[in-house]
């Protein structure tokens, strides 16, 4: 799968302040990756879910008219270029409609799970399996990564800045592989890169390293098994999870070893976490696009920022912190500021879509072979509204585009996810508080 490209410029170069830097030695580690999907009998339908925090100004999100050929709302305007591959879904609600307690925690934890998570600030968190993980169970095992979970916020600098009564764990991720297993999100682009493409080296070195890691895994699996026998039930369950993970990693390494594709694309090794939010988000989108393209994964989630984010957007003229200003108090000035942030986030998402559209994949583009949701778990942030939620679906997977699917008020978001899971042949019968499917595809 990996070949070395010798043709990269030897000179180091720099793209803007804090941007990615490619250095001479890194040539050796620039991987050559390929899309395998064109060899597949039918085009693969990648799944993605992109999360935006702190709700949205819904009057400027939801198009004014339902049905086909709607006029784009201000916040979604940056996505108009993809209208033929885009569907707006309105009137969804998170679990426990009308209940706003736990608000921000539920906005994140309930976004893809459709549940109202257990109220706890302790370690006994419990939500539900998120739709990305249900999809990953169907299509994830054929790729090195069943799913990728990406974010931008390092949550270690937010002590005490979570929702009262609810664990911080609920807002550090949107992906749950089981009701009690939040999937950690990775925010360092360099780490994402190294996970995806491995470390530098010749093909022989890479192969030797893989073999070594496999024998380390074998041995630690054996040790963990031994340890398990000496433990009580609770600890044993913990180590059991550990062991399953070891097997999952083994599978991934073997998968990478078996992969010997030849088509070429390259990304630069990122130096770390860019200081600018825009560059950080863009870089994560870039990595995500490459991961899809190279068929490293077919399922991904991305939190563009965390709930309760205190980020300011001076470049937009928004000097108040995002969360603070999102409690706009119906002040038109504040509403305008929040809408600016919402629109900016859609603009960045639009650039990602453009990249997918520009990337050939089989008989079409990556965008043609994707189903990507963009939205959040909170409506009007002023009162932490449980509905209507901001939600857009993009990609060839939406079927007929330029539609505004206006559901019955307070349709559980679980209904949407159930519909999606079933599209991927998931046997699941219920997601969160779902009470049926929706007429979507």
């Amino acid at each position, binding site marked *: 799968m990996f070949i070395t490209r010798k043709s990269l410029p030897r000179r180091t170069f*720099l793209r803007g302040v*804090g941007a990615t*830097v490619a*250095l001479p*030695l*890194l040539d*050796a580690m620039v991987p050559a990756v390929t899309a395998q999907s064109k060899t597949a009998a039918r085009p693969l339908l990648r799944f993605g879910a992109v999360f935006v925090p702190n709700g949205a100004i819904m009057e400027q999100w939801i198009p004014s008219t339902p049905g086909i050929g709607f006029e784009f709302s201000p916040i979604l305007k940056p996505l108009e270029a993809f209208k033929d591959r885009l569907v707006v879904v309105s009137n969804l609600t998170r679990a426990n409609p009308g209940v706003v*307690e736990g*608000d921000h925690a539920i906005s994140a934890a309930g976004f893809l799970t459709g549940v109202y998570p257990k109220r706890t600030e302790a*370690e006994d968190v419990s939500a539900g399996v998120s739709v990305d993980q249900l999809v990953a169970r169907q299509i994830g095992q054929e790729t090195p990564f069943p799913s990728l*979970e990406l974010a931008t916020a390092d*949550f*270690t*600098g*937010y*002590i*005490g800045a979570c929702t009262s009564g609810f664990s911080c*764990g609920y807002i550090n991720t949107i992906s749950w592989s089981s009701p009690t297993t*939040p999937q*950690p999100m990775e925010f360092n682009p*360099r*780490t994402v890169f*190294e*996970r995806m493409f491995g470390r*530098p080296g010749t093909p022989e070195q890479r192969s030797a390293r893989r073999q070594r*890691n496999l*024998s*380390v895994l074998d*041995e*630690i699996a054996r*040790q*963990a098994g031994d*340890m398990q026998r*000496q*433990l*009580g*039930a*609770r600890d044993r369950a*913990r*180590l059991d*999870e*550990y062991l399953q*993970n070891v097997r*999952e*990693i083994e599978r*991934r390494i073997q998968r990478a070893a078996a992969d010997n594709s030849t088509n070429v694309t390259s990304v630069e090794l990122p*130096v*770390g976490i860019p200081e600018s939010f825009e560059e950080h988000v863009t870089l994560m989108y870039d990595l995500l696009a490459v991961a899809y393209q190279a068929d490293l994964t077919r399922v991904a989630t991305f939190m563009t920022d965390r709930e309760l984010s*205190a980020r*300011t957007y001076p470049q937009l003229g928004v*000097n*108040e912190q995002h969360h*603070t*200003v999102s*409690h*706009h*108090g119906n*002040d038109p000035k*504040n509403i305008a500021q929040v809408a600016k942030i919402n629109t900016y986030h859609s603009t960045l998402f639009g650039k990602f879509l453009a990249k997918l559209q520009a990337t050939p994949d089989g008989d079409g583009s990556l965008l043609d072979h994707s189903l990507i949701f963009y939205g959040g778990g909170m409506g009007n942030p002023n009162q*932490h509204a449980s509905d209507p939620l901001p939600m857009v679906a993009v990609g060839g997977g939406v079927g007929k585009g330029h539609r505004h699917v206006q559901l019955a008020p307070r349709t559980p978001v679980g209904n949407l996810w159930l519909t999606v899971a079933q599209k991927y042949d998931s046997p699941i019968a219920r997601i969160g508080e779902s009470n049926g499917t929706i007429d979507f595809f």
Partner: protein
Amino acid sequence: MKNRLFIIAALWLGAVTWVFPQSAGSGAAIPGATPARASAPSAHRDVVATYCTSCHNERLKTAGLALDRISIDDVAGSAEIWEKVVRKVRGGLMPPAGARRPDARTRDAFVTSIETELDRAWAARPNPGRPLLRRLNRAEYGNAVRDLLAMDVDVAALLPPDDSAYGFDNIADALNVSPALQERYLAAAEKIGELAFGDAEMGMLSETYHVRGDVSQNQHLDGMPLGTIGGTRINHFFPRDGEYVFQTRLFRTNFDNMRGIEYPHEFELTIDGARVHHAAIGGPADLAAAFERPKETADAIDERLGVRIRVSAGPHDVVAAFIGSAPTADATKLRPFLKSAFDTLDWTGRPHVRMLTITGPFNATGSGDTPARQRIFTCRPASQRNEDECARQIVTTLARRAFREPVNETDLQPLLAFYKTGKQEGGFDVGIERALQLILASPKFVFRLERDPANLKPGAVYKVSDFDLASRLSFFLWSSIPDEELLAEASAGRLKNPAVLERQTRRMLADPKAQALVSNFASQWLHLRNLRNVQPHADDFPDFDDNLRQAFRRETELLFESVMRDDRSVVDLLRADYTFVNERLARHYGIPNVYGSQFRRVPVPDEERKGLLGHGSILTLTSHATRTSPVVRGKWILENILGTPPPSPPPDVPTLKENEKGQKPKTMREQMAEHRANPTCASCHKIMDPIGFALENFDAVGAWRTEDAGTPIDASGELTDGTHINGVVALRNAILARPDLFAGTMTEKLLVYALGRGLDHHDMPVVRAILREAAAKDYRFSSLILGIVDSVPFQMRVKMEAQ
């Protein structure tokens, strides 16, 4: 009437809030110091009947509590409820303001006797809490590697951050495992092994060190060598002997203007204090060129700063900075404390180092002789025949330290098998490296496993083994593995001896590694880690830069550290008459005659600045970007100083409106009056807000002020017991009147941190016991630590069910 009940219920909803007590007792208020036999239960029945059950009865069940349904004769039978009752009553929270209240004597007698009962019942059946399987978190992993291999690794780059619970990131059950996480641990083991051995297979590496954009570099920086201005200093680990490229890049605006190039500057790169590169930049030629071709000129200037030099393997101190002793640039366009604004056209000021990239090795000549290799190779095989014997010794030593207990043949076999494979591949060193990689990846290293003795029944409470105790102690005090001395005491079976344990604890507290209590405990307890994300708005606070941010953090860390190192009363954290400042911070506080970037201990000249409540760190991290927040400050104090967090706010809370142009600006206090309009808000805000208002003389970056929006600051307020306070000094005195509350809060936080779990009612007798002992020692730092180390949950464990 209905309304009043509603307010009372709203107060109760929050489970725990805090009210300043009417009688300002002293440490003598600590319960049960000499537990007397409980006084006649009938007296307590009367107290409950008179003051409690009019709301908390079977019919009303206010806050879900019916005290007429549980027997006061059997306190232990409803320990969970009574623990809540005593916490509220002792704190003066119940009965609520406005209701009939017992006098202080009646209250104290009531509370003391119930606590005594609770403590007695607990002592009869000590409960150490749930047994836990703890994974090393990121900080612990990094420290363990440091202590095992004499090598500092950038653990933040190797491992993901850990989830936290109860305010700390070392909580056992919050430390999940996932494939992504385990993959990172596996990769970390491999990378650390290669670095430690200087493995040639690493090839070239490139590390880039960024300097935050908001660091002012117009003057000497704290921690930099004398005679330098700005720049950056790093401790870089060079994996092998060889040549390395050092490329420094300067800050430039997005129009490619470099700061300071109108004047000449001398750049210097030093390694371990010796100059290895020198370059002149700036002056008329560069300035003229920059006018013509800004990008090419800036690139050329950066190029002058690059150099390729031979460096020996191991850690080296690398400094990239400008030489000089005083600011030379015209500072008219910049504020006195010189913010590095991202102005796109401005080139005044001094050049700022933006990043330093170290790439190499080129032409590597060997693994060199690094501290890591010296630590690992406790023997060197004299000939090939001795190799396996020596390997066994090395691997045994490493494994014992890493696994924190003696290793047996079963542990050694796989390690030696890895050694053998590696040796066949690449010789003796490679063999040891493979064994090390396995050690670091092993669940025995990554998990803190405590094995239950086979001969006990499930549910039995027992003292953990000496080795487990050694680990509990070292991870508590050092966030790391035990050292040789501690392991030796454990091997000798002496660690459970109280005198030995105390001696070891004191020794470890005096060790530099106890710095972990500052960087991991204090920084999370006091939320100092949040400072990183604090960004006061530049229009309102143009002088705020990273230098000030770092100084804030440093001051609080140094105060905590001095209390720890000098074993002072922890109450000094609130009242110390000294603090630690450098010039930047001293100016901010208005402390005269402090020059230079290094921190030093100075007397606090103003009463208002004394202790944590006067620290810029706390005051800034509890403010918004554009203004102070009395609510956040009040909440922070309730949670972290007084241990009584307020309940969550109701939904639909609008933000305070910004002042409109042309309107007479409203003061913070006027804006906050809105809280009083709504009774639901008022029930909690009347507790929080007066505390926050008392700090209003400190602005959103902790600078002293006497007016806000043109109106004089009004820092007066009324605490819930009716006490009038005005300003930070009165607030501090009110808190200091009950040192047991502060010491109790800190003890609870320390206990959570030490045990890696949240506390429940079973732990309250433990907290009280620690406080009783500590009160007699004026709450010295060591008295809290020793109390925890001595406690049942720290030393004991419940055997788990087999199934």
